[in-house]
C-alpha cells in the first residue's frame, strides 16, 4: 500500500474557510465547555441562524500582480449547510452539506472528486456543521483575540502535515463571520470577505431545495 500518494494533501483553501464560516455561523448548540470567550463567541454566532449575503474571494498568488477575484452570493443556514453561489468570473454553484462538498451540474448536485484528502476535508466540514468542535481542535490550536471591534479567531495547525500546507488561518467578525484569511506555507494567500446583508430573510423554496430541506 502506498503512503506518499495518499498523504499528498489536496488543498481546498476556500473550503477550509467556508467550513470555518459554518462553524462560526452555525455550529454552536453543542459546543462543549471551553474557554469562556469561545463560549461567548459561539453563543453570539448561534444567535444568527440564517445569513444571506455577498462574498468576495481574493486569491493572492505570488506570481500574479493582481489577486484572482471571484464574487457571488452565499446562504448560510445554521443547521443544514452553506450555499456558495459564484457569479463571476463564471457562474457556478457549490454547497457544503453533511454529505460533503458538492457542485451543481446539469444532472443535479454532484460531489467534487472523491479523492485522497477531499473526503477527509468534507468530513471535517461536516463535523463542523454538526458542531463537533473536537474535530477542529484535534487539527488546530484555537485562540481568540479581541481587536478594536468584534473578535478574531486564530487557527494554527497542529499536525506536521497541515503545517506544511497552512501557516495559519484567521477569522474575524462581529455579529457574524466577516473575513477569513488563509496563509499558505507556499506564500499564496486567500482572503474571503463575507458581507451579510440580511439575517431575517427566510430561505426561498429554491434555497431550501438546494440545501436538501
Amino acid at each position, binding site marked *: 500500500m502506498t503512503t*506518499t500518494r495518499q498523504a499528498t494533501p489536496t488543498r481546498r483553501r476556500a473550503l477550509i474557510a467556508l467550513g470555518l464560516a459554518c462553524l462560526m455561523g452555525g455550529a454552536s448548540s453543542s459546543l462543549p465547555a471551553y474557554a469562556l470567550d469561545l463560549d461567548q463567541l459561539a453563543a453570539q454566532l448561534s444567535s444568527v441562524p440564517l445569513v444571506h449575503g455577498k462574498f468576495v474571494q481574493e486569491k493572492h498568488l505570488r506570481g500574479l500582480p493582481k489577486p484572482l477575484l471571484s464574487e457571488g452570493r452565499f446562504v448560510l443556514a445554521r443547521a443544514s449547510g452553506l450555499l456558495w453561489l459564484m457569479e463571476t*468570473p463564471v457562474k457556478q454553484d457549490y454547497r457544503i452539506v453533511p454529505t460533503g462538498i458538492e457542485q451543481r451540474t446539469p444532472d443535479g448536485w454532484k460531489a467534487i472528486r472523491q479523492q485522497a484528502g477531499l473526503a477527509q476535508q468534507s468530513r471535517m466540514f461536516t463535523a463542523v456543521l454538526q458542531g463537533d468542535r473536537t474535530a477542529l481542535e484535534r487539527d488546530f490550536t484555537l485562540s481568540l483575540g479581541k481587536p478594536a471591534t468584534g473578535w478574531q479567531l486564530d487557527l494554527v495547525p497542529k*499536525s506536521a502535515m497541515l503545517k506544511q500546507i497552512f501557516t495559519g488561518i484567521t477569522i474575524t467578525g462581529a455579529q457574524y463571520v466577516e473575513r477569513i484569511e488563509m496563509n499558505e506555507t507556499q506564500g499564496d494567500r486567500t482572503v474571503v470577505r463575507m458581507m451579510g446583508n440580511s439575517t431575517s430573510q427566510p430561505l426561498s423554496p429554491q434555497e431550501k431545495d438546494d440545501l436538501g430541506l
Partner: protein
Amino acid sequence: MVSERLALRAFLLLIVVMLATAAWQWRGAAPVSANLLELLPDEMPSLVEQQAVTRIEEPLNRELLVLVGHANRDLALKLADTLQAQWAQQPIFDKVQWRFQPDLDTVRKQLLDGRLAYLPPADAAQLILDPHDFIQARASELQNPFGASSPVAAQDDWLGLSGRILKGLINPTRMQTDLGTGALVSEYDGKYWTLLRGHTRVNAFDLQVPAQAAELVRQARSQVAAGQGELLATGGMLYAAAASDQATREMSLMGSIATAGSLFLLLGSFRRWRAVMVMIPVAAGILSGVVVCVTIFGKIHVLTLVLGMSLTGVTIDYAMHYLSKSFTLRPWNVRRALALVLPGLTLSMLTSSLGYLTLAWAPFPALRQIATFSIASLAGAYLCAVCLLPPLLKGFKPAPHSHLLDVARFLVRSQRKIRRLRSYSSLALLLVLGLGGIVMLHVQDDLRQWVAPSRALQEEARQVSAITGYQPTSQFFLVTGATENEVLRRQAALSARLERARSAGGLQGYRSVDQLVSPVERQQALAAMLTTLPADALAPLAALGVSDASLRQEIDRLGALPPVTPSQALAGPLGEAWRPLWMQTPDGFAGLTSLQGRVGSADLAALGKDLPGVELVDRLGSLSELFSATRQTASWLMGAACLVMGALLGLHFGLRDGFNILAVPVTSIVLTLGVLGYIGQPLTLFVLFGLILVLTIGVDYAIFMFESISGRSTTLAGVILDAGTTLLSFGLLALSDTPAVRSFGLAVGLGITFCFLLSPWTGQHHARRATATVPARPKTL
C-alpha cells in the same frame, strides 16, 4: 564380546555427540519453522526470478496488517494510536507504522523536477494534441474556489502539471490519508477503519515470532473490543502461528496416543516393566532425526515433526522384533534373539529407508526434510536397538502373555481360511473391486493438498482486503532488459495490454514502475512539443494576469528539464510504493509488474505472450504443474520399484514365491486406492508417497510371514505387534487437519491393514519345505 562392547561404546559416543549438538542447536530460539511458504519448491529457473519472488513475498512474510474499526472515526484513530504506542515497544517489531508524515518539501521538489517524467500518459496526450484546452482547463482551475490544487505553488508550475500528476497517481487501495493524523482510514460498512502495519524485526519464522504476533493480536483484539471497536488482522505469521498450533496439538495428541498404545501393547504382551526399554530406540530415533535435520537444513519444519511422530510405530518395532521371539524362544536370551532377527531387522531398516529415499528425490524441500528426518531416525533407532539395548536387556526375562499367542493362533486358524480363499479368481475379484474404486478416484494437484489454512483466518483476510481494497496475488510479471529505459519500455507495452484486460474485468489492477515514470523518449517528446507550443495557447493564463515573461520562462524551464530515470524516480518520496518493484540484475535491470485480483494463469500467460523480456511468474500455477508432474513420476517410480522388488524376490525365493510375496503389497495398494476412490478421497501426491511406504512395509510383512522363522503363530504374533504399532502411529495421521498429512496417513493406514490381512497369502516357506506331502494346488497362487 569385544565387538559388542566396542559397538556399545561407539554408540554411546554417538549419543553424547548428538546430545551436545542438539543442546547447541537449541541454545537460543528453537530451530523450528512453521512457514507455509517453506514447503514450496525452492528451485527457481533463474536467480533474478528468485530475487523477484523474495521481493513479492517479503510483505507476506514480515508484515502484520491490522485494521482497527469503530463507528466513530476519532475513536477508531484513538484506539489505533494506543495500540501503535504499545506495539512500538514490542521487541518482535522493528517498526509499527500508523501515521505517515511525508516531507512535503521533498515531494514538491520531486514533482517539479519530474513534471515531464511523471505526467500520466493521458494528460501528456491531451497536452500534445490539444494544448489550448489543456491550458484553458488550468486557467479555470486557478479561478475556481474549489479547484484542484497541489503542494506546488501556482507560480512554480503555471501549467499545473504537478496537480495532474498527483491526480493521476492511482490509488489502488480504499485507504485515504487523514490530514490531521497522517493515518490511513477507510470507511466501510458504517465503520471507520484505520490501518496499522507491523513489520517484524527479522524474517523469523521460528515458532516464537508467529506465536508472539498471534498473542499480541489476541490481546489487541480484546483491548479494542473493550473500547467498542473491532480489530481485524492478517499476515503470513498468523497463518504460521495457526499452523504450528495445530501441528503442536496434533503432534502431542498423536504422539501420546501412539506411545500409550504401543506401551499398552508392549506391557500387555511381555508383562515386564523393563519391556518399556524398547522405547529407548524410539527416543534415539527422534533425537537423531532432529539433530540431522537441523544440521542439514538449519531448522526443522513442524510438518516434519508431525510426520516424524508417526515413525514411532516403525522404530519401536526394532526392539519388538527380538522381544517377540520370547513367545517361542525359551529361555529367551537377548543375544540369541538378536542374532536370529538381525538380518531381517537390517533388511527392514534398509527397505524402509529406501522407501523414504524416494521422498527425498521429489523437488519439494518439505519432503526432502521428511525423508532426511525419517532415514536418520530409522538409522538411529536401529543402531540403538542393536548396540545399546542388548546390554540393557541382559538378564531380562519377558513373560510373554499367552493371550497374544492365543490371539495369534486364532488368527492363524482364520488365516488358514483366508489362505484357502487364495486363488486366482479371488485375487482377480479383489483386483476388480479395487479397480472399480480406482476409476472413481479424482486427482488433486494444487496447494490445497499441502495445507488447509484456518477458515477464521481466511475470512478475516477476506474482510481486510475488502476494507483496504488491497488484494495481492502471488502472480506477477517479471520484465527484464539491458537498460533501465528498455525495461520501462517493455513494461509500458505490457501495461497497455493489462489496461485492456482491466477494463474487460477480472484483473482488478496492477502496478508497475512505468505508471510512475515514462520512458525517456516520451519525456523528450513532451519537452520538444512544449518548446514549440503555439503562442496563443497560453492566452488563458495571460488573461489571468500572468506575465508573458514568466510564461516564457516556465516553458524554457520545462523544456530544459533533464530526463528522469526510474532509479531517480524511485529514490524520491513519490516512488515509495514502487520501490520494491525495481531491481538491478547481473545483466541489467528488472521490473516487476504486480497484479491485483484473481485471474486464471492461462489468461495471464496469454497477456504476456510475445512481449520481449516479459515473463509470467506464477508460483501457485507452476506448483500445481509440479505436483502433477511429480505425482506421475511417483507412479512410475512405484511401478519400477515393484519390478525391482519382484526381480530381487524372484532371485531369492524363486519366481513363484517371489510373485506371491509381491502380490501382497501390490494387491493392498490396489485395494487402498480402490477404497480411497469409493470414499471420495482425492488421489494426491501424498497418497502415492504413502503407498510407496506401504510397498516396502508390506514386503517386510510378507517376507516375515513367508519365512516364519519360529513358527507361524509366533511370527504372526510379531506381525500383529508390528502392524498394531505401525497402524497406531500412521493411522492416527489420518486424523490430522493438514491435508497432506491426512492423505499420507490414510494411505499408509489402509495399506498396512490390507497387507496385514493378506500376508497369509504368501504361503509358508517352512511348512512347504518340511511337509512335502502338501499337494501342489495348481489353481492356487
